[in-house]
């Protein structure tokens, strides 16, 4: 068994970052996620697609335990990050979320200055020793999020005063400022116009070099453009998971085919 794994790794030269085993999620009485098994690779963009209410966002929020903030939500099964169970009692969800960053559907900059928005995470985690280091972190994060040139002269201006696309890139900068290992994105472009969407997509592709990115999207074109792996969810089940090219050109499951050709959803 061990040698088999070793062989696998050697074959495709990627490492598994997140492993989910038999994950079930319940909201009160409703069963939102049913027996999901998935392996998410490092330095890869993985897209979750599926019709509304299929559980893809719920599953995404399981990966950094954001569902803990919802009282009625229960999670069963194992999710391993680098081989460690994140639902283990010894794991502090607050520490976990520093490692697994998240970008939300609607841009949600804090009502603070642009600088304070980005420095928020590093500050609460004590990532810098002095102002100069913090300046460096802020600049680096803003540069990586491809928004530095637009805001470098007005770092003291409120983050809420930016345009929608700029706000979302600011939120991405904010998320990567804590140097997470995984970046979760919940429909990050759904509130953006096509130009801002293109900028964010380009950014996602660049982020792949440093992070594992998991993105939930309603746009199949977007999934095809940015991801290497795609998972199709339907009614709480993970129907199909594989390389993006294969899912879009040669799906195995009839439900996947129906969805990507627009017959259901």
């Amino acid at each position, binding site marked *: 068994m061990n040698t088999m794994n070793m062989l696998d790794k050697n074959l495709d030269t990627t490492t598994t970052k997140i492993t989910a085993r038999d994950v079930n999620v319940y909201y009160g009485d409703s069963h939102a996620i049913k027996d999901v098994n998935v392996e998410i690779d490092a330095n890869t963009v993985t897209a979750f697609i599926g019709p509304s209410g299929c559980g893809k966002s719920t599953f995404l929020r399981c990966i*950094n335990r*954001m569902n803990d*903030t919802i*009282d009625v939500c229960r999670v069963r099964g194992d999710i391993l990050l680098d081989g460690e169970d994140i639902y283990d009692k010894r794991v502090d969800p*607050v*520490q*976990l*979320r*520093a*490692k697994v*960053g*998240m970008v*939300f559907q*609607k841009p*949600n*900059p*804090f*009502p*603070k200055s642009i600088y304070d928005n980005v420095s*928020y*995470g590093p500050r*609460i*985690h004590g990532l810098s020793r002095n102002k100069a280091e913090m300046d460096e972190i802020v600049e680096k994060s803003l540069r990586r999020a491809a928004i530095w040139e637009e805001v470098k002269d007005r770092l003291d201006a*409120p983050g*809420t005063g930016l345009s929608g696309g700029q706000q979302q890139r600011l*939120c991405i900068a*904010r*998320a990567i400022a*804590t140097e997470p290992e995984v970046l979760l994105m919940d429909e990050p472009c759904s509130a953006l116009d096509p130009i801002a969407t293109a900028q964010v997509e380009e950014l996602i592709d660049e982020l792949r070099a440093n992070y594992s990115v998991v993105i939930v999207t309603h746009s199949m074109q977007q999934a095809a453009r940015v991801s290497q792996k795609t998972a199709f969810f339907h009614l709480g089940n993970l129907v199909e998971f594989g390389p993006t090219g294969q899912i879009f050109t040669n799906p195995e499951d009839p439900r996947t085919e129906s969805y990507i050709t627009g017959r259901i959803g």
Partner: protein
Amino acid sequence: MPTFWLIVILLALTACGFFGGRRRALASANGNPRDLHSLPVYYGANVAMSIAIPALMTLAIWLLVQPMVIETRVSASLPSEVIAENTSIGLVMGDVRRLSDGLDEAVVQGIFEEKQSFALNTEATDVRAALGTVGVALGSDVRPEVLAAAQQYRQLSSTGKRAMTLVCLMLALGGLALSLRNTNKTFRARNVVERGILALLVLAASLAILTTVGIVFSMLFETINFFGLHTWRDFFFGKTWAPNFRGDSELSMLPLLWGTLYISAIALLVAVPVGLFAAIYLSEYAGSAVRSFAKPLLEILAGIPTIVYGLFALLTVGPLLLKLFGQGEEGLLGLTWMSGATSVLTAGLVMGIMLIPFVSSLSDDIINAVPQTLRDGSLGLGATKSETIRQVVLPAALPGIVGAILLAASRAIGETMIVVMGAGAIAKFSANPFDSMTTITTRVVSQLTGDTDFASPETLVAFALGLSLFVLTLGLNVLALYIVRKYREQYD
């Protein structure tokens, strides 16, 4: 005809108009409501409105204006020597009114005939005795000039009343005829009724505003009277509050203002932290079970009458503080800072308790209005719950919370009962919170309930104080509104 019957007739006409309008509209469409522009009810309502509104409005205005007009005419015709004997024209006119009412009453009870009552003269009949038998007591014997004026008064009143009845009925019938003539199937009754409703809403809104303006003006006139009798320098810049009912008082607002602000500041020191922390707990940490009983429980505090808080201050908090800080053997801490149960601290603490639900329920609403996405964003970065609240939720809610605090402050400044019972009645400048002090509101009460001439500066100062208080709280409210508006859109 008494006014009551006139109103009944107008209402009856209105009801008839409603059904008549409905029927006429239906008839114009040959009984098919689909051919009508509006529902039949609207045609009825249109006719009813055309009858009732002009007639009733005229009636209301007439009832207000007629006594004023008659009064000026009668008082103008009074010979000047009648007034010279008495002190003022107001007293004579009071006699005239009472006499004419008495004569009317006597006619109703059958002592005099209608015609006989107008032909009375003071030599032939003892009018005072006659009126005494119907229960109208006059202060002195009736003089001929006053009787003549009273007769003129009655004459004018009855003429005016007859004219009023006539005009109102004409208006009602005119409205009925005009609106019935307009009623046919193409008439847009619905739009007309809609405009009527709009007018009603505008009327209600302007009534509220006009009342405020009226209050301000009535205070303003009395205040101007006050400053005619007392120098404004003493009121605004004096050092002592020492009303003396023999006159020559020192009436400075400053010691009272100091007491007001001191007590309010202590109240806010109690209410703001407790209220805010309670709001944070209830909105961010408490489970729905705790919330569902704790929130109403907290809001019960807001429903307690302030006089009950006053009793609490007088009977519980005051003696307790005295025991802790008081002089003599009873002082548990061995201190002699406090000499009586009434003090700034007593009133401030109890007022603070009163303001807790005010601050907490407003802040709770404001904290709940901070979008969940902001909390998610912060939690998603690995912030703990309290970091999220301190650094994201509270800054976002801050303008609203400041507004809530300022509203609480203006309540504290205007509070009376707790201060009357808890703070004492001594007006002085002192920084010692264990001293008795008094506030603007309690002095307004004591100056107005005194047994003095209404036109003396000692009484009129109450209006100046009231107006100052009004300006102070208005300023705070405007400031609160400004802050809330200016920063409200931060997270929208």
